[in-house]
């Protein structure tokens, strides 16, 4: 019979955190969502817009004579604004992806009481949030960052001139910055709602309203028009993102509001969502 040491064995091992502990959560989440037919269809749809933009880009840079004949276009200059337009047109796809992928991410874990299992592992709440955010983020990178980045590379390939490069060199930086901001705002908002709500459909509805789509957007515009005060627009997260995004690309969509004000609102939203998540994400739900 084996004789085991029954005495205390002091543990001198490493108790530091692994910096990428969140990665398996993101990876597993993406792999669980990716094979779904509706998700594949949505990804295809998401790439249609940039594909059309690619054709337009080719037309503007290489076939201006033809374009002029067909559309009466004078062959408008291609600059950072063109790439911002490619991002901006992805708005509805972003909405669909966020609500489809994000609504149940934490709500399902709470339903299955899986948080107990997560937090019996050496995971911090931040690891868990980053992992879940990584799932939403992956799909936003797939539908916003990647196509626009390819569009930029395509542009440089067909117009490898210093003039063109000089006009669009900062696009990758602006694009990355905007995508990160989009992931942080849209992703954390859906995760916070998922940590509070139970049913995916209500979580999705709440996100659409809070993000500032649909009727809420109209109400904000109406209030702005009636009061003549531009600050009402700050209440729409979607408008704030658009405002800041355009600013990153060297444009201003709202001359009455400084983009920094919109950025400040977005940072407040991120901080509020993170606070909600830290409060709600616990291994054991204490009901008083």
């Amino acid at each position, binding site marked *: 019979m084996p004789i085991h040491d029954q005495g205390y064995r002091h543990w001198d091992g490493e*108790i530091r955190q692994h910096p990428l502990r969140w990665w398996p959560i993101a990876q597993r989440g993406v792999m669980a969502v990716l094979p779904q037919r509706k998700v594949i269809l949505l990804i295809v749809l998401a790439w249609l817009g940039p594909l059309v933009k690619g054709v337009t880009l080719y037309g503007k840079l290489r076939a201006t004579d033809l374009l002029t004949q067909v559309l009466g276009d004078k062959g408008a200059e291609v600059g950072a604004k063109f790439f911002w337009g490619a991002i901006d047109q992805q708005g509805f796809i972003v909405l669909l992806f966020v609500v489809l992928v994000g609504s149940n991410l934490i709500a399902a874990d709470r339903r299955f009481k899986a948080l107990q299992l997560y937090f019996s592992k050496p995971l911090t709440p931040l690891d868990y949030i980053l992992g879940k955010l990584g799932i939403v983020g992956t799909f936003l990178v797939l539908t916003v960052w990647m196509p626009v980045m390819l569009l930029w590379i395509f542009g440089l390939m067909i117009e490898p001139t210093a003039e063109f490069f000089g006009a669009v060199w900062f696009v990758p930086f602006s694009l990355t910055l905007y995508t990160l901001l989009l992931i942080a705002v849209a992703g954390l908002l859906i995760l916070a709602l998922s940590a509070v709500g139970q049913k995916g459909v209500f979580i999705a509805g709440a996100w659409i309203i809070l993000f500032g789509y649909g009727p809420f957007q109209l109400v904000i515009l109406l209030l702005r028009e009636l009061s003549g005060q531009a600050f009402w627009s700050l209440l729409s997260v979607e408008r704030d993102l658009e405002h800041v995004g355009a600013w990153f690309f060297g444009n201003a969509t709202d001359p009455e509001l400084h983009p920094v004000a919109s950025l400040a609102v977005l940072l407040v939203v991120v901080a509020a969502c993170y606070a909600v998540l830290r409060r709600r994400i616990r291994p054991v739900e204490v009901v008083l």
Partner: protein
Amino acid sequence: MNAPVLECQSLTRWYGQVIGVSTVDCQVGPGVTGLLGLNGAGKSTLFKLMAGQLRPSLGRVLLLGHDLSHHRGLFRWIGFCPEPDALYESMTGREMLVYLLRLQGFDAPESERRAQLALDRTHLADAADRPVAGYSKGMRQKIKLAQALAHDPKVLFLDEPFNGMDPVSRYESMELIRALGREGKTVMVSSHILHEVEEMTSIILLIQNGQILAEGNIREIRDLVERHPHQVRIECEDARRLAVDLLPMEEVLGVKVEAPLRLVVETDRPRRFFGRLPHALLSSGVKVRGFQTLDDDLKSLFEYLVEDAG
């Protein structure tokens, strides 16, 4: 003196105005320890505090000499089997284990290897590639047990691990827990069934009203229980006749006929009574259909302990 693997120091947890656990001080060493308590005694709260699932309002839990609430990395050495069904229904048993092992920091091949070992150890290998949604209650308990031990932790917390298990699974799981204890792991098992714990360990912690009522060897507790009158219900074909035959026995304090076919015997020396009972029954000639000891349960045990403490 060697430091304990797990130590609770003045551990207290409030839920608003309600005290869940109050100033618990205890030490747990290697081997299997049973945490026993009635429903609502604070057993689950204490268990979750010890396993780091809840933060204490006061006091602290030391695991391997380190404060559990300050070192998240210590969870590498904890295996936790929760009482509720905390499972991903759409995953297969193997996928779930691999996923949870990846969260421990193992790479994919090592996670696969460890998952297979855990599945073999819990006798779940045949069902490993079926979705968890189709698992029976016993299999669900086993997969929870498998995920708790798959990463080879030093300390295991098993919250009511036998709930819903069939006798074979229960036996296999008890064997496994005993083996883990023999291997030198610290295994805490919570239960409200005394004999269940008794089959795995002789070391127990008894909790009531959020406080440790007794700790130590289960035999001492047994002896204490046996000093108190026991009640035995006997189902037989003629309760009145059997009552007349049993009453003269010196171990019998009294007999109550509950129904024509049922009586309750009170005895202050249960071991001696059970030793002499077969002879008494043969002499009486009354056919017996069944026995049930009425107060050899946890509730009586707690009542006796509280009585003794008083």
